[in-house]
């Protein structure tokens, strides 16, 4: 007779802007079903935006997610620009691209670090976060803040960059290149990581389409969806870069996509710094006419979708925000079933950087006696022990 147990993960486990509460239904070591409860981080931003003026909203949506704080304002601003038919000056487009790509590097590095932590490779965690620092420095140089850049405004950007700033950014990403190569090699050539990540948490292309998965999650399944290429915004159609995909749909594929995308980001930034034209940084926007607009931006985790409706007043009538994780999180239902418990932690993390993994509270409860079995530290320990076992084998 099978003995079914419920493993609770959360609620203090924020992926993206939502803290989630997972329940894994396990039989022995194998996960047979999964459920999730969100709402812990629901703050009512969509309603809040209806009480703000068009110019105030970018500062609110910046705080949808602190790690995508360049993507959300940009998506919103593009939606409004679509309503008002604003022609954004060339220089502003390049400046937007630079900030967005810097954000992508820091976000992917952050994920690599946390994935390393989950697998018991704390060296990777420390290294990735250390080598992420030049990038946050570059962002501070570019926008004045390490996070929450407050860079976008309707019609352009709020702050110009001098040649010295651009040079410093160029230098920072050049410095980034070498440690990134080292990290990439460390991940791609490690037999233990191969054993741990390959064929784990597989998301098939069919599932990816039905769940509407986005970003590295879907590109790791071999589907080349990238808004930057398909519906070009900012200066992405003016520079030379490639959409990275990896076959397999497993955790390894997603890791490969993220690491290689950092190199593409560096390539884009370098071209932008070289080619950036002079001139104005913002267009004058008089009033927002009635209408509907859609803004799409490829955030580090996938497409961010903003829908804005205006009735001609100075406030939006409706502002819908769809962050990539809203579509990516439910894919766990497809990718986690049939896995062993130690593999779930990394599969949950594979969709998305989970920044605060370390602080999530987790208790496994025996479904029949209601007695706790694992806490979160023990779950991570299980995951780390599996790596240790494999290490010995190699």
């Amino acid at each position: 007779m099978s003995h079914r147990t419920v493993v609770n993960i959360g609620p203090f486990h924020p992926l993206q802007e939502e803290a989630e509460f997972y329940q894994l239904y396990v039989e022995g070591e194998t996960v047979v079903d999964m459920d999730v409860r969100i709402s812990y981080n629901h703050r009512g931003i969509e309603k809040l935006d209806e009480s703000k003026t068009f110019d105030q909203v970018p500062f609110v949506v910046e705080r949808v997610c602190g790690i995508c704080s360049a993507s959300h304002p940009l998506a919103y601003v593009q939606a409004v620009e679509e309503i008002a038919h604003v022609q954004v000056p060339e220089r502003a487009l390049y400046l937007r691209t630079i900030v967005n790509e810097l954000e992508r590097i820091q976000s992917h590095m952050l994920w690599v670090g946390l994935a390393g932590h989950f697998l018991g490779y704390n060296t990777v965690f420390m290294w990735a976060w250390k080598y992420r620092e030049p990038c946050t420095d570059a962002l501070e140089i570019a926008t004045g803040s390490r996070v929450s850049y407050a860079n976008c405004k309707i019609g352009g950007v709020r702050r110009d960059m001098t040649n010295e700033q651009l040079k410093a950014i160029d230098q920072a990403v050049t410095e980034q290149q070498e440690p990134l190569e080292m990290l990439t090699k460390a991940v791609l050539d490690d037999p233990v990581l191969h054993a741990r990540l390959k064929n784990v948490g597989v998301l098939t292309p069919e599932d990816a389409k039905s769940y509407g998965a986005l970003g590295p999650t879907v590109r790791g399944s071999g589907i080349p969806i990238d808004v930057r290429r398909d519906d070009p915004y900012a200066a992405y159609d003016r520079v030379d870069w490639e959409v990275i995909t990896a076959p397999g749909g497993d955790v390894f594929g997603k890791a490969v996509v993220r690491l290689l995308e950092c190199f593409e980001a560096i390539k884009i930034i370098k071209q932008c710094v070289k080619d950036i034209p002079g001139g104005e940084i913002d267009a004058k926007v008089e009033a927002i006419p009635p209408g509907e607009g859609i803004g799409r931006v490829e955030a580090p985790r996938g497409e961010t979708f903003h829908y804005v409706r205006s009735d001609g007043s100075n406030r939006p009538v409706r502002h819908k925000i769809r962050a990539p994780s809203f579509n990516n999180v439910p894919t766990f239902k497809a990718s986690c079933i049939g896995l062993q418990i130690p593999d779930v932690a990394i599969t949950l993390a594979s969709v998305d950087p989970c920044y605060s993994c370390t602080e999530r509270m987790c208790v496994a409860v025996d479904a029949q006696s209601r007695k706790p079995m694992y806490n979160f530290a023990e779950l991570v320990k299980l995951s780390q022990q599996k790596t240790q076992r494999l290490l010995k084998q190699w």
Partner: protein
Amino acid sequence: MTVVQTETEIPLEGFVGEVFKQLGDAVLEVHQCEARRGIVRIDPRRTVEVAKKMMAMQGSRLATATGIEVRDGIDVLYHWAFEPAGAVVTLKVLARRPELEVDSIADVVFAGNWIEREMHDLLGANFRSHPDMRRLILDDSWPEGVYPLRKDFDQVEDRPPLPPTQSSPDVATDGREGK
């Protein structure tokens, strides 16, 4: 600036136009048909059929859906994205008052599942034959029948009262009985 356009004035051209043509007479009204953006209103009785057609098209995926309260009820906007064409096609379905009910497309495309639960939570739209209509976005103590994204809900004045808090640390359940 008010431009009143009837359906005949907008020619169905380009990629978005082709998509609209495939939907046939399920389309009631065309609001916009440009190179990369299109908005149409479709017949609420044929939502599921249209969703199946959209899902079968090359490179389509359901990006998300938006619910908006309008005079006659709730407008549900399904945003379908197309790769690599880079187009977004928005299908509007009206859920009329007082039932505010439309057919669920969650069985056709899983991406519709969560977003329909969200619209049910925040706006009170009802989705017929949705497989799993539990609460998603709002907290456990939020009263039934209060929908924060409705226009008559004031986010400061109409906030439901918070549930009473446990006051004594002694009664804390610490979830570690046994062991």
